[in-house]
């Protein structure tokens, strides 16, 4: 019997189009897999079996009636719990939103529904997308399918783990400082952050509005491109949405050609602080691209080293503003302060935010409030905005010499659960290679490029392209993916350990 959970989205789509299977059958197979293994992984916060099967039946009926359907019609998908889903609980991993049922869909979700893609459920995440390990979820951590004692990355660890554990062929993530690419790196999956403004942010619970970007989590480059085309494009509901057609990413993913392309290796982003096995795989991947006809240019991006510091001022500042809406007045949790008979709105607000926010959210909201406060604004937030300018200039100068830039996606493979939980600075360092893309708004992608020699865990290769040139990510990634598959004989996830599932009791 065909195991639909092991197929890529493109393969499932082809099987559906040829009538070899139905969306109901494929969706049910994934729901069964979730029931079997998610107790061990905890990728999902909510599973919507009824809704997914109803959507699957609707698309099967439409196909039977001869309706014209999109490329991914009938292919099920998981959605990060930071996207509003009408009628389906949305918490952003926070207690303060526990039980919130949105009265509307995020634009990305509307597009998935319109494309006939059944939504399997909502995936776990660090609270309000603050974290690099999914340990900051108020609902407990997600575990890495490669080793359940290790983190699946963050903040989109649930989406990445769902795809890596074959619980969903596709998932949606959001990336504010690397939250799609870093989980992809440590779970052996493909994660794409499109150009800022390339995918609507309407209905995505805001963390840092000038940095947040939704994108695909998949097991292949072609799947990422197919999903990118479904969710991308201009949206009048989002004033920061780019009013231009979606770049030709599917065509680029099918082409996968780097001959004549100049690949820029950023000095300083792949050396000190990077795990030796990660560095070794990075160098081997660059060589594979050279073998396929690319040339390598070493480029300097001197401001990148200050990107992390700038990010950890800009992101908390925007977060402190965005999270002010959780004030216990219109929706979400309301907690009365203890021992106060007739509390004021201000007292209720403070007590609610104390009870509803976790440690990391409190840390960042307080940091952001501090950075924006009178007397410190110029020294912190103002300076960080200038660093952002310098980083954008570094990118612009680099792209005059090269077509894409490449780095390892994360400095290390997946670390152990709890290892960095009490050391915020150590956690923040995970995002050092991914953050510059968010600060400048350029697109980035991580693809799995092997298992590190010292621990046998997945490593990621990051590709960064100029803004609106997303197709270059897919062109390079598809070429590297093909070269790596030739080397391994199969996708890297074929080497992942089998999960015990229910059989283990």
């Amino acid at each position, binding site marked *: 019997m065909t195991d639909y959970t092991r197929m890529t989205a493109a393969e499932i789509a082809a099987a559906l189009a040829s009538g070899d299977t139905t969306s109901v059958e494929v969706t049910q197979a994934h729901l069964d897999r979730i029931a079997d293994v998610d107790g061990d992984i905890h990728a999902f916060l909510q599973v919507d079996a009824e809704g997914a099967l109803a959507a699957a039946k609707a698309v099967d009926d439409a196909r039977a009636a001869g309706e014209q359907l999109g490329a991914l019609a009938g292919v099920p998908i998981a959605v990060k719990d930071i996207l509003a889903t009408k009628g389906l609980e949305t918490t952003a991993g926070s207690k303060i939103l526990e039980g*919130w*049922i949105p*009265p*509307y869909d995020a634009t990305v979700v509307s597009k998935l529904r319109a494309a006939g893609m059944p939504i399997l459920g909502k995936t776990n995440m660090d609270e309000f997308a603050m974290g690099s390990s999914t340990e900051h979820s108020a609902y407990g951590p997600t575990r890495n399918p490669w080793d359940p004692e290790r983190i699946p990355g963050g903040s989109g660890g649930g989406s990445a783990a769902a795809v890596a554990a074959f619980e969903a062929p596709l998932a949606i993530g959001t990336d504010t400082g690397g939250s799609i690419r870093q989980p992809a790196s440590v779970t052996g999956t493909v994660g794409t952050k499109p150009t*800022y403004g390339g995918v609507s942010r309407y209905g995505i619970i805001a963390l840092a509005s*000038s940095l947040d970007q939704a994108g695909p989590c998949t097991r292949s480059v072609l799947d990422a491109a197919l999903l990118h085309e479904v969710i991308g494009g201009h949206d009048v509901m989002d*004033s*920061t949405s780019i009013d231009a057609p979606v770049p030709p990413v599917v065509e680029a993913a099918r082409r996968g050609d780097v001959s004549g392309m100049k690949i820029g290796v950023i000095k300083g982003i792949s050396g000190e602080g990077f795990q030796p096995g990660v560095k070794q795989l990075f160098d081997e991947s660059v060589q594979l691209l050279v073998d396929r006809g690319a040339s390598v240019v070493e480029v300097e991006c001197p401001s990148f080293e*200050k990107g992390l*510091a*700038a990010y*950890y*001022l800009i992101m908390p500042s925007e977060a402190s503003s965005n999270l*002010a809406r959780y*004030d*216990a*007045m*219109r*929706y*979400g949790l*309301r907690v*009365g*302060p203890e021992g106060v008979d007739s*509390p*004021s*709105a*201000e*007292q209720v*607000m*403070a*007590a609610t*935010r*104390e009870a509803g926010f976790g*440690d990391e959210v*409190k*840390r960042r*909201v*307080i*940091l*952001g*409030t*501090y950075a924006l*406060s009178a007397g410190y604004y110029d*020294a*912190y937030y103002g*300076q*960080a*905005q*200038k*660093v*952002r*300018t*310098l980083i*954008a200039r570094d990118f612009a100068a680099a792209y005059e010499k090269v077509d894409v830039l490449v780095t390892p996606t994360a400095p290390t493979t997946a670390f152990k659960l709890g290892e960095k939980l009490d050391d*915020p*600075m150590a956690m*923040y360092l995970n995002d050092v290679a991914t953050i510059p893309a968010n*600060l400048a*708004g*350029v697109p980035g992608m991580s693809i799995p490029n092997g298992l590190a020699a010292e621990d046998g865990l997945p490593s990621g290769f990051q590709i960064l392209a100029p803004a609106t040139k997303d197709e270059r990510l897919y062109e390079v990634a598809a070429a590297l993916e093909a070269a790596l598959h030739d080397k391994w004989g199969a996708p890297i996830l074929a080497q992942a350990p089998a999960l015990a599932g229910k059989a283990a009791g």
Partner: protein
Amino acid sequence: MSALSRDEVAHVAMLARIQLTDAELDRLAGQLDQIVGFVATVGEIAADDTPPMSHPLPLENVTREDVVRPSLTPEQALAAAPKAQAERFAVPRILDED
């Protein structure tokens, strides 16, 4: 450098409308002081004449025709409210007793 004292953290938490326990203050103050020491390094490289960048895209004001469009009903808007009364959000008192 020690940039952020425990008292300052308590003050900023109050500004951010987050009530903290003493244990939380003890823990967060040390961590925030370390983080502030790190992020303060942004001051080392940007020259005075570097323009600040708030956003990766040039922002344009977006306007729409002033026409009535479908929107949430009062019932939908109030459905997730902690407390509602007479088709309105019911909130704790906002004025001091005196």
